[in-house]
């Protein structure tokens, strides 16, 4: 299993994009604008998530010089 944090964030982006693709396809199937509206919300969520996630990643990297997610298993202190 891969535990690199930056790959984790990229995979989250891919999954959010897939969910948005499903919404847009459904909205295109039943010619309704609701799917595209949901995609816009997913876009805003992804932007918020990636900004906070990358800030956390920088903090963790400066703390223990590693992007391994297991290196952050002891966070007390």
């Amino acid at each position, binding site marked *: 299993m891969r535990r*690199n944090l*930056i*790959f984790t*964030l*990229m*995979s989250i*982006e*891919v999954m959010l*994009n897939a969910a948005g*693709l499903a919404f*847009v*396809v459904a*909205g*295109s*199937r*039943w*010619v*309704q*604008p*609701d*799917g*595209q*509206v949901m*995609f*816009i*919300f997913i*876009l*805003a*969520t*992804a*932007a*918020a*998530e*990636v*900004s*906070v996630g*990358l*800030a*956390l*990643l*920088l*903090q963790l*990297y*400066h703390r223990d010089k590693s*992007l391994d997610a297991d290196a952050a298993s002891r966070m007390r202190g």
Partner: protein
Amino acid sequence: MDAVFYIAAVTAILATLMVITRLNAVHALLYLIVSLLSVALVFYTLGAPFIATLEVIIYAGAIMVLFVFVVMMLNLGAKTAETERTWLKPGMWTGPCVLAAFLIVEVAYLLFHAGSLGQEAGLVEPKQVAIALFGPYLIGVELASMLLLGALVGAYHLSARKQQQLEIQDGVDSNGTRAVTGRDLTRSGAGGPSRAA
């Protein structure tokens, strides 16, 4: 039109598979950008041109720039030039370039055969999207703005705490003098107008 959709879909799947199997973060980022662009082309062929534009501008533009920026910040070191030299091998950029060449050919085809879009697919105009977005989904827009504001404050807080820690660590030896001078500056600044008055 169907061929354009299928080629873009296969390109998206191939690029995404390359994203999750690469070991180097920069290689994966290049493939991820190609994947997002091909998904934007899929959106266009599905009859959602506004969403395709948003995908290119926000996902492939803003979010990927954030990723590239962070990867660039993480690789600050003495051996950065050496790693850059190893990254510039042709094996690095041929894969994404070949996949992006498919997309360019498709976009050129769509440009020269424009007008065939939307007759057979369920085309949803941006006007309908806007009417739905600011009509029944208005509370969702407000919640999204709150979420973005929270993300802004959170990202600022997470990156500002690092600088405070650095200042504290720097000023361990001369902590007392620095704190006293800082306090004096604050006090003199605050008491200036009263003293003048």
